[in-house]
Every structure is written in structure tokens, then in C-alpha cells.
């Protein structure tokens, strides 16, 4: 199988996984009552944290023990991307059929994404300090992450500048979709074409596949990814439920 075919297959699979994840995420966020998945999130995150600190890891030059950050830093970004996608889909649904509920869900999902993004940035910065020797480097991938956070910061500022609820909901949904469509895809493409990134996963750099080759790391990493994604949905559910209740309380 040629490399190109493999690339296409991988892209297709990831699109399907993404769509499924968003669909499932929405179901989970809107679900009610105690659920197995929350216990699963707790078990996976705590388990992956403990295991991540204890299991033997391959000794790589420069990276050394810091490779364990893989179990924290990368899953946080996965969680962020997933919950951002959920936010976009809620915004689209809002435009199709406006309701305060969908607006709250989109907003809270975006806020969860911002939280995970900040965490991801912090863990990444820490990692960079000990491997590259600097807290921040002008690396395309890092810049892309910063831009993504700026966009969502702008989203929050925009929301703050409306007095009318419906107006705020509609316009911020529009900006959410627009900013996503305009900037996010490029953030994936830009590091690839600029071609001089230190960040793993870029051209000329080994992706984490290399570390992953170690079969002891792989299950822990996957568990952490699923755990953090579930955690992001859980957080969104709790915060949106709280906001909904506040709205109901205000209405009375």
C-alpha cells in the first residue's frame, strides 16, 4: 500500500471517528442522571495518571523521563479539539433552530475547550522548558495553539459585548463557526507547510508514534485520551446544567 493511500485512509477514518465522537459527545452531554461513563472517565484519568507515572518508559535522548508528559499534554489537546467541535456543532444547530439551551451548550463547550487549551499550553510549555530549553518558541504549532486560544478569547469578548440575549446567541454562534472555518483548518495545515517545526508530529520530526512503538505506553496513552475527552464532556454537562438552572431561576 502506498503512503498516499494510507494517508487518505487514515484521514477518512479520523473524520469518521471525529464525527462519531461529536455525535456521542452531544448525547453524553445532554444525558441525565448518574452514568457509567463518568465513572469510566474517573477511572481512566486517575488510572492513566498513576500508570503514566509508574510504568517503565523507553529512555530517549533529551526527552528522558519527560516523555511521561505525553499522557497529560496530548490527551488535553485531544479533549480540547473534540469539545470545540461539539461547540461548533451546537452553534450550527442554534442557527438552524435557535433556543437558549443550544446557545448555553455551545458556550459552555467552548469554555471547556478553553480550559483544556490553557492546560495543554501549560503542560506543553513545561515540557518545552525541559527539552527545548525555553518556555515558548516561535514554533508554528505553538503559534497555532495560541491563535486558537485568541480566537476563543475573542469569542468570549464578543459574548460580553451584547446586552440582548438572542442577539448575543446568534452573533456569537456565527463568529464561532466563522472563526473555526477560517482559522482552525489552517492551523493544522500551516505547521505542515512551513516545515520547520520542532514539535513532534511535524515534518522531519518523529511523531509520538516513535514513543508509542513501545507497547507499554500505547494502552495508557489511549486510556488517557478517552478519559480526558470524557472528562471534557462531563465538565461541559455540569457547567451547562448549572447555567440552565441559573437561567430558570432568573426567569422565576
Amino acid at each position, binding site marked *: 500500500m502506498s503512503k498516499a493511500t494510507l494517508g487518505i485512509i487514515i484521514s477518512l477514518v479520523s473524520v469518521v471517528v471525529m464525527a462519531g465522537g461529536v455525535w456521542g459527545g452531544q448525547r453524553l452531554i445532554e444525558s441525565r442522571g448518574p452514568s457509567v461513563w463518568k465513572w469510566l472517565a474517573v477511572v481512566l484519568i486517575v488510572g492513566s495518571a498513576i500508570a503514566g507515572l509508574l510504568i517503565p518508559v523507553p529512555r530517549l535522548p533529551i526527552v528522558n523521563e519527560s516523555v511521561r508528559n505525553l499522557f497529560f499534554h496530548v490527551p488535553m489537546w485531544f479533549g480540547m479539539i473534540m469539545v470545540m467541535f461539539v461547540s461548533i456543532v451546537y452553534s450550527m444547530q442554534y*442557527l438552524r433552530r435557535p433556543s437558549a439551551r443550544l446557545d448555553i451548550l455551545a458556550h459552555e463547550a467552548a469554555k471547556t475547550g478553553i480550559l483544556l487549551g490553557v492546560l495543554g499550553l501549560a503542560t506543553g510549555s513545561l515540557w518545552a522548558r525541559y527539552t527545548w530549553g525555553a518556555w515558548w518558541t516561535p514554533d508554528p504549532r505553538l*503559534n*497555532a495553539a495560541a*491563535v486558537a486560544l*485568541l*480566537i476563543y*478569547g*475573542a469569542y468570549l*469578548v*464578543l459574548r460580553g*459585548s*451584547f446586552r440582548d440575549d*438572542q*442577539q448575543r446567541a*446568534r*452573533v456569537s*454562534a*456565527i*463568529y464561532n*463557526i*466563522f*472563526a473555526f*472555518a*477560517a*482559522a482552525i*483548518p*489552517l*492551523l493544522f*495545515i*500551516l505547521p505542515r*507547510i*512551513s516545515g520547520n517545526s520542532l514539535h513532534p508530529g511535524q515534518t522531519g520530526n518523529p511523531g509520538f508514534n516513535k514513543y508509542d512503538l513501545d507497547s507499554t505506553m500505547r494502552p495508557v496513552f489511549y486510556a488517557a485520551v478517552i478519559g480526558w475527552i470524557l472528562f471534557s464532556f462531563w465538565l461541559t454537562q455540569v457547567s451547562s446544567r448549572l447555567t440552565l438552572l441559573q437561567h430558570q431561576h432568573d426567569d422565576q
Partner: protein
Amino acid sequence: MKTVFAALGLSFGLAASAGAQPAKHVVLISIDGFRPDFYREAKWPTPNLQRMAARGTSADGVRGVFPSVTYPSHTTLVTGVAPAQHGIYYNSPFEPDGATGRWYWEESLIKTPTLWDAVRQAGGKTASVSWPVTAGAPIDYNVPEVWSLDKALDRLTPVRQQTTPKGLFEEIEQRATGPLTARDMSSDYVSGDENGSRIAAYLLETYKPTLLTLHVFGVDHAEHQDGRDGEHVRRALATADWVVGNLVEALAKAGIDKETAVIVTGDHGFVDITTTLAPNVWLAQAGLYGAEKGAWKAQFHTSGAAAFLMLKDAKDKKTLADVRRLLAAAPAEQQKLFRVVERAELDRIGADPHAALALAPVLGRGHERRPRRGPHAARPRRHPRLFPRQRPDSDWVYWLRPRLCRRQSAGPDGPARCGSHYGPVAGPAVQPLPEPAARASGAVTAAAPPHHWPCAARGPRAAQLRWGQIAVPPRRARVVSLRPETNLLPVPLLREISTLLAKDFRLEWRQRAALGGLLLYVGSTVFVCFLSFSLRGGQPPAPAWNALFWVILLFAAINAVAKGFMQESPGQRLYYYTLVGPQAIILAKMLYNALLLLGVGLLALFLYTIFLGNPIQDLALFVANLVLGALGFATTLTLVSGIAAKAGGNGATLMAVLGFPVMIPMLLLLIKVSKNALDGLDRGVSQQAIITLLALNVIVAAVSYLLFPFLWRG
């Protein structure tokens, strides 16, 4: 019964002759069934209106709402939004269990703020006489148009009871009109309008309200009876003309004529009919609609000449499909009578959101013309811009009636309506109407499908007022002929875009100071850079030259594009909204901004070359990149400026906050390519970045195109 909304907007600023100062008072008179020929053609008995049209501002038509009947139209006049938003979808609401005969009387049914609300908020006083949908309205001096379902009650008693404040009606009788009976306020006699005018004149002189609204109903009633022309029509029209003259005189007597804008408008026109169509007969024949209460799956709610399909269960796709089949199965000569207006189009024109689809009457070309005869021989010639009714030789030859039923009079202006909702559902679906005299009592309306509204101008007069900018209308009316959005063919869209583009250029030229400011901004920035670098002696290094150039352009772009949406008032935006589709607006705006930014970019390059030298080695690539940059900045910032304009307040700051993150990737690519051009690298090196830029422009433009209608709708 009413139809083509605002057969005309004839507006007359008394103060206009004194100059363009804002008016302190507004008198809004709607003449039900008004048509432009009434003031365009000297043969009509309208000396006041013709004089006003000659001295003030007038138009040959305005865009209406669907259905174009009195209550939705009047509500649109005072809210500036379509029926879908204000909630007055028809004259009488759809009542699934049978029409009781009630109309949309109560102001509380209007879901959006009205002119009266706006005036009250601004601290002004309002008055209203016989305006539709005003029962219980927050109007300071209100004589509403309302009647009772109780047949024992005469038509005046409910009006007397619901006039506010208490005692006002008695005060009017005592000091203005003398004691009034139901006959004195009836549309059967021209004195009904005369008394309405006396009441309005009394309110104007005594209370000097900021806004007075008056509904003149006699002409409509006469046209329902006689057709487009006739002895009764002329008498009613002469009275309507006197009504307007009387109010203008009252303004002079009150001493406020110099500071008052008088607006005379209509709510719909008239067209003659020869055939009627009863689509519910089809439904009954197919078993979808029964005579018993609740025994129906689908039924048409008729309003004017249009019929709206109501499904008992809105999600009942099967019944909808059945109805579509029935409509498609109708004989060809019946199919020619109507056009199916789909939900998407209903959404676009702001009609009742509950209807599954609607039927609109279609021009009856190819039908036999009836010989002119009798009192109808002297009919006005067909006015191509309007949808007048009641002419046997007209293009508009059909109306839709709910079903065969006994007729009974209802409504303030008494067209025959179907009173017994569950009357027998039988008989042929299509019936020729007998002779003109009998036809005259038919509720004949021409609900024009939107793409048949050929002309629009001066439409949102009411809308502009709604935003509190009570201004005397401009002296010169420009009639812009634009076809509203309907089909996917790009040609009307292109025409709209070119018109809007011309408008933007003209606006820019009129506001030369703003353009000059922008150019000066670019010039002075470049000069400051020059001075800063000359301190260090000489030219900046190429990377700095490049980065500075793009930073200057970025900020100039924010300033230039920010003007676009933000300098237009909400009223103006609403005005464009009534004329063209949102897609045309966003495309035209993007195109305009791209051209503007390209001009600014080239100017910046020129100045830059003069002051800071020109190290570019591949000029062609650099300019091509500049074009891409102008396009990219324009596509991105146009929607962002629309968003920022919605937020109001600190628009320019918000624009930078919203726009910069989105533009950073684009800016990085642009800087990279222009650096390549500066260094004269092989073009192949820049190829990938250029393709990405192009793709990005396309994506951003497409997303803006899709999202803008949502933004615009608010």
C-alpha cells in the same frame, strides 16, 4: 380585505421645503387600497395628494408583505419587520377548529416593538385613529379599530369602550364631531373617513402628538364593491383626499406644520378577477378535510388571494406529499391559476412560519378578455407596477376562497367573507365569477408572489422612523428597480451586486473626508516609519521592510472595512434588507472592500517605495500577492465588521479583537510569499502558499456567504 401592501408610499414633508431639518412630529396616514395612479394621474379627484406628490417625495410602489392584506401590512408599517416576526400573519388568525370571525384586533398580539413603543420610549406622545391591531395598545390617545363577534352589538360600541384614555371618546363627540353612531363611523358611507379625519385633526390640534397614525378605510371598501374604478371609488377617494388635506390644515392651525413630516401610504392595491379557486374542495374530495370539527389533516387558510396550507400535525410529511400530489394532479388550466410558494420562499419573505406551503395567484395571461361594458368601461389602464384588483381584463384574474359557503359580511370594511367555517364543502373547485356587479363583493386580492414585485423604493419609511430617526424624507426620490431574491439564477443577483457596488462607491465619494482620512492614515504611517528608520540612517532591512508593510496594511484594512457596516444606521440596513437579498449584500460588500483595500495597498506600496526604497525583486509576484491579500482581508473582515456592528459600542476595537486571530494564519502566509518575492526566489517556492491562500479566500468567502443571512436577519 387587503392586498398588495402599500400600493404606494407617498410621503410629503411639509418641512422639507424649509430644508432638511429633522421633523418633530410625524403624521402617518394609510389609505387602504391606495394606488400610485391616484396621485400620478390627474383624472382622479385628489388635488391634495397630487400637490403633495409634486412638492414632496413620492414613489411608484413599495414592496409588500405576504399575504398583502390590511392587518399584516399595517403592522409591518409600524414595526418595520415581516409578519413572521411581528406575528400578525393574516387579517384573521388561523383557527383550526373553525373560524369564529375574529381578527387580529389586540396590540398585545404584536411580538415586536412598534413605532408607538419607540416614540413613548423617546419621551414623545402618540395618537392613533382606526389603525388596525391597536386594541389595548400603549398609545396615549387611541381610538382603535375593533368590533365584536356579538351580532347584537353595533360596530361603534366596542370602539367607544376601548378608546383610551377613558372619556376621550366623549370628549371628541362633545368638542369635535358631535354625537356619533355606528352609521357615522361605517365604511359604507364616506362620512366614516370624514369623522376619522375630524377626530385625528382634533387630536393633532389639542394634544400635538409626536406621532399620529390614521387608517382611512373607505377607498378599500369602495374598490371591493366597484372594482378599480367606479362612482363609489371616486367619492371615497375624494373623501380620502379631503382627509389628508384636513390634517395638513389642522397642522397649520396647530402651528406645527413647519416641523411635521406627513406620510401618506397604502397597504395594498387591487386587481380585477374573473375566476375563483377553492383549494379546500380538492382536500375535501381527497378526504383530507371534512366538515366535522377536528376531522381534518390539512386545510388551506385563505388570506387575500393567497391560501396557506395548514397541517394538523406539522410533521405529517405524508399528508403534505398527498397535498402536493393533489396540486400537481389538477388540470392544466387550473394549475395556471396559482403558483406554489414553498416553505423556503415563505421564510425568505417572512410569511407565517406555521404554513407548510402557500398558493399565490398567477398572472392570467392567455385568458379570454371580457368585453368592457357598463359602468366599468372607463377603467384605468393597467398600471404595470401594481397589483390592482377588480378589472375584468387584468392579468390578475383569480382569487382563492376557502370553500363554498354562504357569504356574510365581516371586517371593518365589509368584504364578503366566509363566515360559516364548516359549511358544506362541495361544488367545483374552480368557478367563473358571474358579472362584475356580483363579483364586486368578492374578497379579491392580489397577493403578489415576491418576485413579481418589480419595484421598490421608499419602502422602509416606517422602518426608519421606528429607529427613532424621525427625519423629513429627502426631497428627491430615487426609484431603484431591484428584483428581490427568489431564484438561483445569478443574473438578478449580479444586478443587485452591481447596484450595491455602485451605491458603495457613491457613498464613499460623498464621504470623501473618511476616504481622505484613510489615505492620510496610510501616508502618515509610512512617513513615521521613514522617520524612525532615517534615525538609524537609511533603509530598513528587507525582513523589517516586509513585516512593516503588512502591519501597516493590516491596520489600514481594519480601519477601511470597519467603516463599511458601522457607518450605516440600523434603519439604512433595514432599508437595504427590504430591497435585496443578504447574499447580494455580503458579496457586494466583500467585492467593494477588496477593491478598496487593493487601492489602499497599491498606494501604500507607492509611498513605501518613495520613502523607504523598493527592495522587491519579483514585482509581479509581489503585486499578485497584494491582490490575494486584499481579497483575503476583505473576505475575512467584511463578516467580522458585520458582527462587530451588531455588537455596537466599541466597534473598531471589537473588530480588531475578533479579526486578528482569524487573520493571523492568512497574514503569515502573505508575509511569507511577499518575502519570497522580495528575495526574488523561484516562484515554485511560493506556489504551495499561494494555493493555500486562494483556498483560504474561497473558504472564508463561502462561509461568509452562508452565515451572513443569519447575521442579517436580526
